[in-house]
C-alpha cells in the first residue's frame, strides 16, 4: 500500500500553512512584530526622547540647551504665567468634555436603542461626515459663523436678541469683542469638532446593554429615572470615560483652534508650539507636553479607583 492518510503537499505556502497551524503562537508573533517595532521604536522612543529633553534646561544668556539633568525646567512650569496657561487649558478641556458628554449621551442613546436600518445609517453618516472634511476648513467656517459680521450676529439681530448677545460678550474673562475673539468661541468650536469622539464610544457602550436589563430593572420596581441611574448610566460609564479621554486629551493638546478662534491668551498647545519654534526652548516645551500626560494618567487612575471599568 503506497497511499498515506495525508495528502501530498510540497509548495512553499503549503509548508508555511502547516508550520503556522502546528505553532499558532508563531503566527501571532509574526503578525505582531511590525506594529510592535513601529510602536516600540518610533512612538515610545520619541516619547522617551521627549521626556529626556524635559530634564534639560535652557541657558538664559546663550540661549543654548544645557545637557545636564535638572528639575529646574519643571519648576518653571509653576511660574504664574505658565501655571495660568495650564489652568486655562485644563479648565477649557474640562468644560468641553462635560458639554460633549451631556450633548452626546442622548444622541448616542437614541442611536443605540431606537435607530434601525436607514435611521442608523443616517446617524453614522451625520456623526462621521464632519470628520471627512478638513479640520482647518471647519475651524475657519466657525470663525465666519462667530465673527462680528457673522451668522450669529445677523441671526441675533433678526430675532431682536442683540442685547442678550452683547451681555454675553460683556461677561468678564469668557467674553470679548466678538464670539470669534472669546473663550466662548474657542469652547464652542472645541465642542463641535470633538463631539463625534464622544458620541461613538458612548453609543458602542450603550449598544452592549441588552433591552432585558432595562426590562429586568422595571420588573424589579424601578421607574425609568431609577433605571437610568442604576443600570444604564453605570453600564455606559466606560464609554463616557473613553469618550472623555478623547475630548479631554485632544483639547489639552490642540493649538490650532485657540489660534484661529479665541483671544490672544495661550493654551498648552500654543505654548509648546511657540517655545519649540521661535523661542528654541525645547526643554520647557517638552515639560509642557508632559503635563497633559500626567493629567490623563491621574484621570484614568481616579476613574479606575471609582470603579468605572468594573463592567469591562
Amino acid at each position, binding site marked *: 500500500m503506497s497511499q498515506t492518510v495525508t495528502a501530498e503537499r510540497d509548495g512553499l505556502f503549503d509548508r508555511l500553512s502547516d508550520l503556522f497551524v502546528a505553532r499558532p503562537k508563531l503566527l501571532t508573533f509574526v503578525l505582531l512584530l511590525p506594529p510592535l517595532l513601529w510602536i516600540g521604536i518610533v512612538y515610545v522612543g520619541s516619547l522617551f526622547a521627549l521626556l529626556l529633553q524635559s530634564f534639560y534646561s535652557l541657558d538664559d544668556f546663550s540661549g543654548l540647551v544645557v545637557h545636564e539633568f535638572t528639575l529646574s525646567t519643571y519648576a518653571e512650569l509653576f511660574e504664574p504665567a505658565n501655571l495660568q496657561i495650564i489652568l486655562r487649558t485644563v479648565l477649557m478641556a474640562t468644560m468641553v468634555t462635560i458639554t460633549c458628554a451631556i450633548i452626546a449621551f442622548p444622541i448616542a442613546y437614541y442611536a443605540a436603542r431606537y435607530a434601525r436600518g436607514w435611521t442608523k445609517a443616517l446617524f453614522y453618516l451625520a456623526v462621521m461626515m464632519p470628520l471627512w472634511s478638513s479640520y482647518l476648513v471647519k475651524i475657519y467656517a466657525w470663525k465666519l459663523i462667530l465673527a462680528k459680521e457673522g451668522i450669529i450676529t445677523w441671526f441675533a439681530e433678526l430675532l431682536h436678541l442683540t442685547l442678550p448677545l452683547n451681555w454675553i460678550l460683556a461677561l468678564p474673562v469668557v467674553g470679548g469683542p466678538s464670539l470669534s475673539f472669546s473663550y466662548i468661541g474657542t469652547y464652542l468650536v472645541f465642542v463641535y469638532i470633538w463631539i463625534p469622539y464622544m458620541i461613538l464610544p458612548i453609543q458602542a457602550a450603550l449598544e452592549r446593554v*441588552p433591552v*432585558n*436589563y432595562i*426590562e*429586568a*430593572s*422595571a*420588573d*424589579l*420596581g*424601578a*421607574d425609568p429615572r*431609577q433605571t437610568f441611574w*442604576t*443600570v444604564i448610566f*453605570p*453600564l455606559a460609564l466606560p464609554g463616557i470615560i473613553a469618550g472623555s479621554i478623547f475630548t479631554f486629551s485632544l483639547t489639552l493638546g490642540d493649538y490650532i483652534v485657540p489660534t484661529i478662534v479665541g483671544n490672544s491668551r495661550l493654551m498648552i498647545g500654543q505654548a509648546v508650539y511657540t517655545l519649540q519654534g521661535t523661542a528654541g526652548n525645547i526643554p520647557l516645551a517638552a515639560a509642557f507636553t508632559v503635563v497633559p500626560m500626567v493629567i490623563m494618567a491621574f484621570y484614568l487612575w481616579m476613574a479606575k479607583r471609582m470603579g468605572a471599568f*468594573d*463592567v469591562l
Partner: protein
Amino acid sequence: MAPAVRFVNVSRHFGLIRAVDDVTLDIAEGEFFAMLGPSGSGKTTCLRLIAGFEQPDEGHIEIFGETAEGVPPYKRNVNTVFQDYALFPHLTVGENVAYGLRIKHVGKAEREHKARDALAMVKLAGYDDRRPAQLSGGQRQRVALARALVNGPKVLLLDEPLGALDLKLREQMQEELKALQDDLGITFVFVTHDQGEALSMADRVAIFNDGRIVQVGSPTEVYEKPQSRFVADFVGSSNLLAPAIAASHGGTAKWTSLRPEKVGVFKVDTEVKPSQAHFDGEIKMVGYQGAVTRFGVEAEGVRLSAEVPAEAGAGFDQGDRVRLIWPKSAMVALEDAP
C-alpha cells in the same frame, strides 16, 4: 375570589403577525401554571403581557381583580425570571438580589439581610460578593430566582428558566422549583416549550399554537384526552389515525390519537380479544432507548409506532411481520373536522 391573572379576549399584534390572538384565560391564586407551545406560539408574549412589557391591542387583563392595562411593569406586584437571567453585570450577586429592595428604599442592613436569606433559599449562601460573570449557568438561574422572590411577588413569571441548563441540572431545578412553589404558595406562571417539564411541574397546562390557546387542563387531561391533532402530537408523541383507518381499527370515524405506549407488539398469530383492536404489518424501524424499545410498523401505507418495555420487544427485529394490539379504550377521538 378574583383569579391571580385573568385574560379576557386578549390580542397583541406585531404588524401583521397576531402574536396573541383572542386569548381568554384564568389563572388561580397559588397555582403552578404552565404555558406550553412551540416557539412563536405566543406564550412568551402572554407572559410579557402579564409583566407589563407589552400592552394588549384588544381585550382586557386583570391581576388580582385589578385592571392591568396602562399599569407600567414597575407598578405591578409580579416579578419575572428572564430566559437569559438578565443579571446586572456591574453589580455583585448580593447587590443584584437586593436591587428591588434598594429601589424601594429599604434600609441597607435590612435589604442585605433579606438578600442573604433569599440566596440561602436558593442554596447560594455565601455567594453575595461574587460577580454574575463568575457563576455557572445553574447558579445564575438561582440568583435570578432569588432576585425575583426577594420582592415577595404575588405572581412569579418564569420565561423558559431552565432552557439553558443541561439535562441533569434541569431535572434537579424542576424538583426544586416545584418544592419552592409548594412552600411559598404563590402563583407561578411558567413558559416552556418542553412538554416533559410542563407535565411534571404544572398544576395546569395551557397549550399554545399560533397565538391561541388550543387546550387548557391538568397534565393528565391534556395527555390522556387531547382534543386536537396538534395537542396529541405536541404533548408526548402520538399515532394520529385518519378517520377511515380509525373506524376500521376499533374506533369511530374521526381523527383519533393512539399513544405508542398503549400499543403492544406481538406475533401475527396472537389472539385478539373483543375489547382490543389490532393492526398487522412489517417492522420498518427499531429504536432501542434503554428502558423501552420503539417500533415503527407499516402496512398498506399506514405506519404506527409502538413503545414497549425493552424485554417485551427483545424478540422482534426489523423486517419481521408482527401484530400490534391495543385496547379500544386507548383510542381518543379528536375534535378536528374529519
